[in-house]
């Protein structure tokens, strides 16, 4: 697990909207069907390819604007930050990696948590961002997700977590593994007070993230075509020494195998979440 195949730079690049060398960067190429798309069209279409429905990865900010009622999302800022407590050095120091990630993404970590409204209904949410170290879960990600779940135990708002993560953050060693138990434990306590938890799996959701809170939704939704797995495809190929079938470990495959409640196109996500919350939530508290 936590074998982040696609963590590698190359793969990572392929999945984000690739800007073309045309003045003002207004054109992007779809990494799935190679169509050349006008950036504004793509953004107006929820960053979904107009030709082939390929769902580009989106940043947490984009996700928030797509899902929450205008200006309703209030981030909960937690005064904690990742530290390199193992003095971990691979090809570079963890502390340096963190600094680079912060600079590149202008974010402090791979998840944002907060409260917001979805069609007037209050929810607590966590939104992961793959751009920050592959969305990997270390102590801070685990802690922030735990906090937003615990907040829901108090305020009884449904919890929604959008995942996009390669799994546990190896640079924090065993402590990253324990975040799986920590977040899952928080969900156990959430379940005890009958507050619904909806997990929305976005590309990619693998390793320690999938094997903990991601797969524990009362309702599990996924975006089309997302890679969702425990072991990454490359690890499996190396283990079984054969090519994997097309579509293996993609959302559609998981739906067929009973692991998902529903695959939802990004443009329908807000509406679907809103309906589900309205139906599931035994503690509705509306604000408009």
């Amino acid at each position: 697990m936590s074998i982040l195949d696609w963590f590698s730079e190359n793969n990572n690049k392929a999945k984000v909207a690739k800007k073309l060398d045309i003045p003002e960067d207004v054109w992007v190429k779809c990494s799935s069907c190679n169509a050349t798309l006008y950036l504004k069209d793509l953004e107006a279409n929820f960053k979904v390819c107009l030709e082939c429905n390929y769902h580009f990865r989106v940043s947490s900010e984009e996700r928030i604007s797509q899902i929450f009622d205008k200006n309703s999302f209030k981030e909960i800022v937690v005064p904690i930050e990742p530290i390199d407590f193992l003095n971990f050095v691979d090809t570079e120091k963890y502390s340096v990696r963190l600094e680079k990630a912060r600079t590149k993404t202008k974010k402090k970590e791979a998840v944002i948590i907060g409260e917001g409204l979805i069609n007037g209904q209050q929810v607590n949410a966590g939104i992961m961002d793959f751009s920050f170290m592959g969305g990997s879960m270390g102590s801070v990600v685990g802690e922030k997700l735990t906090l937003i779940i615990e907040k829901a135990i108090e305020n009884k708002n449904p919890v929604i977590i959008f995942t996009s993560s390669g799994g546990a953050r190896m640079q924090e060693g065993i402590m990253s593994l324990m975040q799986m138990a920590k977040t899952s434990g928080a969900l156990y306590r959430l379940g005890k007070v009958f507050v619904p938890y909806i997990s929305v799996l976005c590309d990619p959701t693998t390793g320690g993230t999938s094997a903990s809170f991601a797969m524990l939704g009362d309702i599990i939704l996924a975006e089309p075509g997302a890679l969702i797995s425990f072991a990454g495809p490359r690890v499996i190929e190396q283990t079984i020494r054969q090519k994997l079938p097309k579509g293996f470990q993609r959302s559609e495959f998981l739906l067929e195998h009973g692991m998902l409640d529903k695959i939802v196109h990004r443009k329908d996500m807000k509406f679907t979440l809103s309906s589900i919350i309205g139906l599931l939530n035994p503690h509705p508290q509306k604000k408009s």
Partner: protein
Amino acid sequence: MKYSLSFEKPISDLYQKIEQLKELADTGGIDLSAEVAKIEERANHMKEEIYANLTPTQIVQIARHIKRPNTVNLCKLIFKDFIELHGDRLFSDDPSIVGGIGFLKKHRVMIIGHQKGHDTKENIKRNFGMPHPEGYRKALRLMKMAENFNMPIVTFIDTPGAYPGIGAEERGQAEAIARNLKEMTGLRVPVVSVVIGEGGSGGALGIGVSNKLYMMQNAVYSVISPEGCASILFKDAKKADRAASSLKITATDIVRLGISDGVIEEPLGGAHYDWDATADKIKKILVRDLTAYKKMDVDVVIEERCQKFRSMGNFGYTT
């Protein structure tokens, strides 16, 4: 099989010399007992020296030693009337996780553990201790049974990791592990875990959400195998040594990081040199803990387990 690991070569060389001297003494009718005693003393010193200064990679070798006592071995040595129970009631019986009931002194106990083999044939049967989702689901079924009948749970952790295969993914490896993490949190009985060998990642944690976690002296517990880490982060599969050191996976590391509640000592050189002594050490700890838990209120037991994992994480505070 004795002293067969690469770093044990100096020891095995010395013992070979001792054997040669003894043979020489026998055939030549010479008294070399003083010489032999001297070398034996040197060998003992060397053993102490070597085993006291094992590198993480060497410890990994011991943790994976094929003659190391496995879950079934320990069950037989530690528990009375052990009865193995099979099946997940859903799809299959996974031989890489075994479970069953037995007595630990007066305690009625549910035991669940990863199962490796002592040779290739056994290992193939046991899938080298790498469970499919069925294994985790069997484990959960048995844990729920234990909860129903008020039996404390002991888990033995010993896996390279959950199996990365097509069937395992199809049938929800991630779901199975995740569900166990959640459900184990709330079990209304005490859970005590011992990493008896290899604690491989989510596959280990899947039966490891416990009140107490012990590390055998030469056990390891890691978010990823050193080999996997080397090839992914170090971009060089040969840097497994460095990865093993960086990841902080030895018993002392895991205790120091606050993940484990203590180290269980092994016989000199490793558990495989003396199964009985190893089992005995584990048994003492289990009896002590289960006796203590018996006096505790179940809600306190659950709260202890919840809080233990709740508090895990290491981060800085911003101002």
